[in-house]
């Protein structure tokens, strides 16, 4: 490992870049989960409606 004394601020851009890329990965994963959940809930709602309509049509 390089053990050189540095001005702490010289490496700050890399610090920010590091946290940005880490956050982007986490954010992408969270958005994927949110999107999948929303789509599934919509599908379930639609199918519930269709089942309900089919039930009423069968009874009527």
């Amino acid at each position, binding site marked *: *490992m390089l053990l050189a004394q*540095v001005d702490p601020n010289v490496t*700050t851009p*890399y610090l920010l870049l590091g946290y940005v890329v880490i956050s982007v*990965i986490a954010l992408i994963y969270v958005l994927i989960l949110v999107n999948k959940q929303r789509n*599934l809930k919509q599908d*379930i709602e639609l*199918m519930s409606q269709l*089942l309900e309509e089919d039930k009423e049509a069968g009874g009527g």
Partner: protein
Amino acid sequence: MLSSRLDNTIRILNWLAAIMILVCLALIFFYAPTERTMGNVQRVFYFHVGSAWTASVAFFVALMSGIIYLIRPRKFWDMTALASVEIGLVLISMTIVGGSVWGRPAWNTWWVWSPRLTSVTVLWLVYAAYFMLRGAIEDPERRGRFSAVYAIASFVTVIITYYSIRLLRDIHPALIGAGDGAMGEQELTGKMVFTMLFSFISFSVLYAAWMLNRVRLEMLSDHAQAMKLRLIARLRG
């Protein structure tokens, strides 16, 4: 059916995880001291190690879920293993990318094929292949069994990655118990240790939140699938 109690628990855990990560970031940027040799970039350490530790926990949970599934083949354990591997893969990706960015100013390179970095790459590929395995098997019971065995066997890559810097010479520093091969051991002050431990806890809470969210997603998916089959049966019938 999914309960509102589960939804409430997930909601609380989501908020708790978000708050803890924000507090952790505050500690990292305003509380932890600046490391004297690497400067500010060393602060990546707290998320780098936090995510690595939690990824290992996630893969261990997948291993345990696999073992339990083989003993009692319940779908819940297959779901848990799947969720845990997925989250572990996301966390280890964060570790690798964060470490690479840190490495650029510290080692003057974005990447080096050292024992630690090579073994973590192998780890990533092995766990990524878990999803390919699942995608290739249609029968749910067989898929669960094969996935369980794979998750158990894959954990050896975590052990190898952990010990790589302790058994072989490596540019990557050792945090705990450096062996003769490690080129340097991290020296942490009290504030750094506190921040690191808080990071571990924050990432653990994040993992728990993501796990519940992911398992709930699987349960929703199962529910949707069951409804689809009912609908098809009704339309045919």
